[in-house]
């Protein structure tokens, strides 16, 4: 499992894709960070007059993480698409299946490898946020809540993308499919916006992230994320197993 995770990372970092994504993510997020910082500094004198004013963490970091979630939603299909479909296309899936490891090892290894890469991205966002300490104090609890939420959200993207990737032999198809489903799960949120209690809203990934974004960790959200991850990882393992049987 660890061997596969290491292999995934080695291959990922040997391609320009990983570096381009890291650089672009950082560019976009720094821009947003600076824009929010700018506004905050401008309106800070007025904020002081309100009772219980929002702090820098709420005003800058929360929107930064919300934006990071949307950007990650867009780029995760690029990363998940090749996980299994790419192995199929380059005929290397046989290499993994013939080795004395279980299908679950293959799926989890790939999942962990990708999660490590997502952690690097999140670590960079955290580094950006921590730079605020240079000019004042911050709400560490809110920051940690956001980090936890973003990690879980990325794990959901990775699990879903991995499953879609097991269905195809073409990375591009898998990527398009994943992006479509992720966008769909996001749009559900807007469709159901008129009615806050709509059942549809419960299926939206980003809606469940909102709580974390505000610093509220709800068990319902935790369970939703955990179920989402477990279901799609299990489906991936089953799909690979079935392929062995149906040929």
């Amino acid at each position, binding site marked *: 499992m660890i*061997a*596969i995770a*290491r*292999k995934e990372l*080695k*291959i990922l970092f*040997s*391609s320009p894709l990983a570096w381009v994504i890291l650089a672009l993510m950082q560019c976009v997020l720094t821009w947003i960070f600076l824009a929010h910082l700018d506004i905050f500094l401008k309106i800070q004198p007025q904020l002081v007059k309100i009772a219980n004013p929002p702090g820098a963490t709420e005003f800058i970091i929360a929107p930064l993480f919300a934006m990071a979630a949307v950007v990650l939603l867009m780029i995760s299909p690029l990363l998940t698409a090749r996980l299994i479909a790419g192995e199929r296309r*380059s*005929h*290397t*899936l*046989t*290499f*993994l*299946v*013939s*080795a*004395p*490891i*279980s299908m679950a090892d293959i799926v989890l290894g790939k999942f962990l490898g990708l999660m490590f890469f997502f952690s690097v991205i999140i670590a960079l966002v955290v580094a950006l946020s921590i730079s605020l300490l240079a000019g004042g104090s911050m709400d560490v609890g809110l920051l940690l809540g956001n980090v936890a939420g973003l990690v879980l959200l990325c794990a959901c993207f990775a699990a879903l993308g991995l499953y879609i990737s097991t269905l195809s032999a073409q990375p591009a198809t898998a990527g398009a499919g994943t992006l479509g489903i992720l966008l769909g799960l996001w749009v559900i949120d807007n469709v159901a916006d008129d009615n806050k209690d709509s059942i549809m809203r419960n299926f939206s990934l980003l809606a469940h992230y909102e709580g974390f974004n505000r610093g509220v960790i709800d068990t319902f959200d935790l369970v939703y994320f955990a179920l989402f991850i477990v279901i799609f990882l299990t489906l991936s393992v089953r799909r690979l197993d079935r392929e*062995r*049987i149906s*040929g």
Partner: protein
Amino acid sequence: MTEQIVSPTLSVKGLCRYFGTRAAAHDVNLELRRGEVLGLLGPNGAGKTTIMRMLTGNLAPSAGVIKICGVDLLDKPREAKSHIGYLPEIPPLYRQLTVGEYLRLAARLHHVAKAKIEAALDEVVQRCGLGNTRERLIGLLSKGYQQRVGIAQALIHGPDVIILDEPTVGLDPNQMRDIRSLIRELGAKHSVILSTHILSEVEAVCDRVHILHGGRTVFSDSVNELKQKGASLEEIFMRYTMNIECPGTSLTP
């Protein structure tokens, strides 16, 4: 051939595989001992690759029993697979990795002890003649070297049974000779199954030959015996695989 009392490294009984109603393999029986090289022959679509995929756990059989070193492949796939080295028809290579990185990965996936990985790597690199390519990217190697890396990957964990699907396809005559002598060398210690279309290759490196047609075994004999009888493999191949209806009889050695 000397009589060996050792238990077979590979034993296959009544192996069947159906894709819908088409039989890709029907009632195939194989037995292989240490130090034997078995050649699988047959026209395209005869079921050679299907059988090899089943032997390596890449495809589940519809019926039949596969035992590798006495371990049932279907009951304990992980234990059984650790005794197998497999080179598929298209070598499963990661073009972005160097030869050394790739072979280390193969060793780790096959649970070679950490302390022994470097020694195993040195041995297999030397054996497959990959000496000066260890730091090179696999994607930049020539076809012949890529094929060698593919074989090296199948050998690194010292498997008892080595399964090679058309290992000499697309190689030039010199490379073919190199790979053949490597297979013969491997055949001394391990059990080897190889599939091929080149009949002279079977005569040169195999101890036994197994001809498939339409998923069934149509002929199986030892190569030495054939030579003693003065029978030509080409004639036998034609006789058993040109028939429109395949004879159900299978000769056992």
